[in-house]
């Protein structure tokens, strides 16, 4: 898989209670693109990210990564290439200390102890959280948890980074640091966000979602200057 492009073809997803979260969605995101997923609450942004990460399977349609369809048999490829940062960092952090949590991904990639240690230090340094390494995630502030959650994903060196509301609950400095971090990430990045300014600053392309469908897929500046569209999308 030389190019990490994502392709959604007529993808639909309904939750077990029958709620339809994504409807007949077709998308193509090329390697190195930074895409903002915009939409009101319940528009299907998070479901789309979970589908892209292989954590949910489409009810119909297909998703492929670098031309390889995402199935149970190709899941290891998805895990190696796609990293996801959840909206709530409490859901992402499950190990006893920050260091162990960041090491979890690299350890499960079968890397050597030295390489794991190097990646942990590098990822924590990138989010300016190296000093938190021996703390328990339970004792961190919301902003610190967000930073560590991002580090857990960066440590696996993903080729596609999916972020769900990464700037929610961050103070201005942490938000600025996040923007710089994503700007330095030179692979594919999909960010579901309500933070329009961050979307404008980071993502040349925006997909506006409404009731599980892509209402608009256009350059971010054009999207954000179309007030009728934003109003229709509940933004």
């Amino acid at each position, binding site marked *: 898989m030389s190019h990490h492009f994502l392709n959604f073809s007529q993808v639909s997803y309904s939750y077990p209670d029958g709620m339809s979260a994504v409807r007949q969605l077709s998308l193509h995101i090329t390697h190195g693109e930074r895409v903002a997923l915009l939409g009101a609450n319940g528009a299907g942004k998070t479901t789309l990210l979970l589908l892209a990460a292989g954590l949910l399977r489409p009810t119909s349609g297909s998703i492929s990564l670098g031309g390889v369809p995402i199935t149970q048999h190709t899941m290891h490829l998805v895990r190696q290439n796609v*990293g996801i940062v959840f909206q709530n960092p409490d859901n992402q952090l*499950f190990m006893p200390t920050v*260091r162990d949590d960041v*090491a979890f991904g690299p*350890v*499960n990639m079968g890397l050597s102890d030295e390489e794991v240690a190097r990646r942990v230090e590098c990822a924590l340094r990138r989010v300016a959280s190296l000093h938190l390494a021996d703390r328990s995630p339970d004792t961190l502030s919301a902003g610190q948890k967000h930073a560590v959650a991002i580090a857990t994903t960066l440590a696996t060196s993903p080729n596609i980074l999916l972020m769900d509301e990464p700037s929610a609950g961050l103070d201005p400095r942490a938000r600025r640091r996040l923007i710089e971090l994503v700007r330095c990430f030179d692979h594919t990045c999909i960010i579901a966000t309500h933070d329009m300014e961050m979307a404008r600053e980071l993502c040349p392309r925006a997909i506006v979602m409404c009731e599980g469908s892509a209402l608009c897929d256009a350059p971010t500046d054009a999207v954000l200057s179309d007030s009728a569209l934003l109003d229709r999308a509940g933004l």
Partner: protein
Amino acid sequence: MGDKLLGALRRLSLIETPQHSPLHSLDGRAKIAVTLLYLVALLSLPLDSLAGIILMSLVPIAGWAVGRLRGRTILRWALLSLPFTVAVGAFNPLLDREPVAEVAGVTLTHGWITLCGLILRGVLSVSVVVELVLSTGVYRLCVDAGRLGVPAVVVALVLMVYRYMRLLMGEVLTLRMAVDARRQRRGALPMRVWARVVGVLLIGSVRRARWVGMALEARAGGGVPRFRLPATKWRTTDTLFVVFSAVVITLLRFVDCCL
């Protein structure tokens, strides 16, 4: 209740945070081996051998002192075993009335002695296990058990249950605070409110558990998650600890035979 839960959560976090004491610095496998040896020695003592059982209490006392552990926590957990041991041996004094001694005019029967032996063995057994957990941490304990040959699936399952338990506590805390913030009157909540709260709590914790499961899946590389903490190396001190403890435990057990 909120304060107590918050305290319990903080204490759980503290267990998992590396501490500095001679007991904490030992390899988990060495501590597991010594704990198992102690349990075998203790549980092999006859129930009426009170002197021997009391002598065996030196081991958890030494562990408490060397590990600088919270005595109250150990005692609290140890006392939790009381209802079970009392329930098991409650009929001993009634069924076994053979007199064995007389203390200040009161005749002690064999049934009372065995009941006391049962209670003491229960308290001591739980104490050493609690000390093992407090000085190692649940995560590291599971990982070291895995290194001793416990199947990875079992280790992952125990860790997930532990994580779910912590999630449940967090949910209870959040829910309790939300209830308290909007309550006008103090006092216990009516049962019908509690029933609804428990329902919401279970749904909430299952939802959270599902998210944590997805977080695990996303970073586990497609197989059974491997919980490898930074590897602790077996050192000479670990060997010395096992040998020294084995000698002491065997001696204590042997001394009992002489009593």
